[in-house]
């Protein structure tokens, strides 16, 4: 049986799946139910001076009839008293000693940080997560992403936390920056034991086109919120990978952003995350999704002969290169499997209108024909094809030795002729 246990910056848990600091980790009753379902850890809803929330708070993107492909919120940190929160953390930790229970914190002054860290540790938190990410509401009060966007402030507050804390400290980073690396390095310089990313992306989720009010509507106004859900996953994956492959950055990462199932979680771990955090999918589907996450990852580990998570965390990083270091002579063309093709010809119109006009309707029948002499191997046909495995991208031998663009520029190595550039 593969071993799913992980250690992220000194915080260990029976599996890599943590609830992110958000509504599903708002109370002891919830977190304990989540642990009963199988979640390995939870980052408590951010603690600080309790706030007053607005109504409504959430918005979502519908895509082809499915709601919640993208999601955003204008909810703030905890609105419950710190006494209640810490008592519930204490009770939860006592009942679930092996699970990771992390207190997410957001306060302003050095004194406040000192005070709240002591209380979190007294309650039994296994670690702390400094919320430097929230892009709405709290940042207007000089906290959240207002901290995360300033490396010097990030470093300073992190160093305070490290000064006061005895348990590991993770710094939660905001994606609302041009380049994530300086911000990860700032947390590292401050002494962080790890970073969590991404927090939500500053966003307007939509506009009600009948009332003209952006969403989520609070009366006849709205505000920018934090974007999350499956649609943000590519952005999160990139930011995780950008830190994981940076030579100066060397502390663990807890990956967050659009994780819906074990496959997504595996991708984050392959790009360098030691643990993963989930919120939106739990909000949409409930804690019960973790059963499939555990089984799916275990099955995948067995298939790949991994016994421990360490064996695959970061395994995709060597495959992540700059564009200039890609083999420009590598060539593929699309092949359509006539046996499984259903003749929808969606690939034909996609190639004609959106690519290089190299897939044509057949003269007889409905199975399209690929003009391989023109096919640039872009993948668009494969992406639009509704039949899994029907269109494959097959490597073709073109007689040119592997060469990167940088090698071509610097060493004059030959590059194959362009295709589809008529």
């Amino acid at each position, binding site marked *: 049986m593969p071993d799913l246990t992980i250690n992220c910056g000194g915080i260990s848990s029976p599996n890599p799946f943590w609830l992110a600091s958000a509504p599903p980790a708002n109370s002891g009753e919830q977190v304990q139910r989540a642990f009963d379902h199988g979640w390995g850890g939870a980052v408590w809803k951010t603690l600080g001076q309790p706030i007053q929330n607005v109504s409504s708070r959430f918005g979502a993107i519908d895509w082809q*009839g*499915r709601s919640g492909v993208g999601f955003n919120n204008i909810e703030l940190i905890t609105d419950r008293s710190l006494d209640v929160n810490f008592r519930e953390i204490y009770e939860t930790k006592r009942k679930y000693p092996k699970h990771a229970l992390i207190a997410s914190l957001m306060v302003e002054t050095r004194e406040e940080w000192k005070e709240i860290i002591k209380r979190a540790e007294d309650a039994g938190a296994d670690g702390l997560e400094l919320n430097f990410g929230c892009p709405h509401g709290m940042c207007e009060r000089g906290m959240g992403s207002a901290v995360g966007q300033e490396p010097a402030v990030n470093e300073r507050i992190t160093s305070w936390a490290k000064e006061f804390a005895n348990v590991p400290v993770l710094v939660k980073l905001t994606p609302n920056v041009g380049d994530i690396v300086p911000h990860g390095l700032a947390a590292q310089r401050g002494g962080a034991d790890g970073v969590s990313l991404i927090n939500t992306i500053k966003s307007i989720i939509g506009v009600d086109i009948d009332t003209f009010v952006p969403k989520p509507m609070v009366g006849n106004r709205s505000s920018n919120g934090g974007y999350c859900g499956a649609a943000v996953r590519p952005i999160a994956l990139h930011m995780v990978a950008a830190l994981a492959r940076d030579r100066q950055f060397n502390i663990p990462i807890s990956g967050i952003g659009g994780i819906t199932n074990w496959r997504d979680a595996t991708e984050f771990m392959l790009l360098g995350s030691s643990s993963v955090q989930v919120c939106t999918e739990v909000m949409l589907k409930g804690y019960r999704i973790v059963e499939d996450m555990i089984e799916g990852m275990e099955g995948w580990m067995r298939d790949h002969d991994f016994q421990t998570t360490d064996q695959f965390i970061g395994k995709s990083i060597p495959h992540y290169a700059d564009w200039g270091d890609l083999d420009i002579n590598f060539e593929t063309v699309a092949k359509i499997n006539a046996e499984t093709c259903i003749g929808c010809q969606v690939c*034909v119109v996609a190639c004609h209108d959106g690519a290089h006009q190299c897939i044509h309707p057949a003269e007889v029948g409905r199975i399209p024909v690929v003009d391989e002499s023109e096919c640039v191997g872009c993948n668009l046909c494969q992406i639009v094809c509704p039949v899994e495995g029907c269109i494959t991208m097959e490597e073709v031998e073109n007689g040119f030795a592997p060469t990167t663009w940088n090698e071509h520029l610097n060493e004059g190595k030959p590059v194959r002729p362009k295709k589809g550039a008529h």
Partner: protein
Amino acid sequence: MDELDPERSEQVFEDFKKAYTANQAIVEANRCLYCSDAPCITACPTGIDIPSFIRKISTRNTEGSARTIFASNILGMSCSRVCPVETLCVGDCVFNEMGVPPIQIGKLQRYATDMAFEKDWTFFEAGADTGKSVGIVGGGPAGLAAAHRLRRFGHAVTIYEKRDILGGLNTFGVAPYKMRADAALSEVEWVMSIGGITVEHGVTIPETYSWDDLLGKHEAIFLAFGLGPDTRLELPGSNLDGIVGAVDFIEDFKLKAMDLSAVKQAVVIGGGNTALDAVRELRGLGVPEVTLAYRGAEDQMGGYAHEWSAGKDEGVISAFNLQPVAYEGQGQVDGLRVVRTDADKKPIPGSAHTLPAQLVVLAVGQSKLGELVSDLDGVETKWGRVVTTESGQTGHPRVFAGGDCTNGGKEVVNGVAEGRDAAIAIHSMISEA
């Protein structure tokens, strides 16, 4: 137009295929692959741009969706209910190739077109008056489709209709679990709302007008007079009460109250779609024992398999490989005498027996009305059908034809396509003149 009889028996029927809610329609619309050069379009006789109208439903552009449908098929509302989509658009959906349930195109079309009626969206206006006129003989689907298209071109139109109601078989012949007469008439009203279509009811040819009269009044005429009465089976006992033609029977219960309380057993003779409608309708009207008697084997029936399958589900009894030889009874029919037939549909000696029935419905075809045009110069007929070119022109340059009188009895959607195409050809002909 007369009001419909409020007591008419068809009202006991509910829709066999339920209307979609908005939610259901959007979920189904989102499944559509939006094929290019889609096979469903090719399968539709009127060539509706199906992927486009479905995509518009998915974006809640239902008005645009309905516009797309009606642009090709002005009777898109009734076609959405009565088309045998299983053998047309839905049958050709590429999802069938994938082993995935095909898109329910008919139900989506109904969703969009019903909403058009509900919201009173009318998409088309009559063209500027051309001063020319066209006479249309028959106010069924082909005639209405032609009339509407001709009005869009600006030509004056007169429909000559034998009955006191319009809509043809859509009104008095469609199985009521697909569409009831009131829906058909509301569609007629919607089509007529383009304005400028004159209707003369109670017209028969040559009694009311001769062909020369019509050719004298109009630049062109369009023949869309459909089919004639049910074919009778002349057997001993033909004069007994309780032996009816299927088309007459269907019209009777659709438009009037029908008392079938004395009928415990009914036999429908035939194997085509009218026969399959009749058996299902008899069951729906409460006849306890309904038998379909067909001279061939089950797989030789001309009717659609999906219709027969529904009939079986509804408790219709089958009696295959039978040939009727006599009606039995005293004054009122009480049985149908039959003999078994072999694989070549030949009688098997000694196999005679009686199927008890207080009602025998004949669904063995309708007569063709080709002889109506025998004195119309240049117009040819074949097997009683009016012969036309692809665009609907007969051998007489000013006479066009379409619908059942030319195709021998196909679907509503074929009549609509033929009426529309003939209108385009007529427009082109009289615009050049």
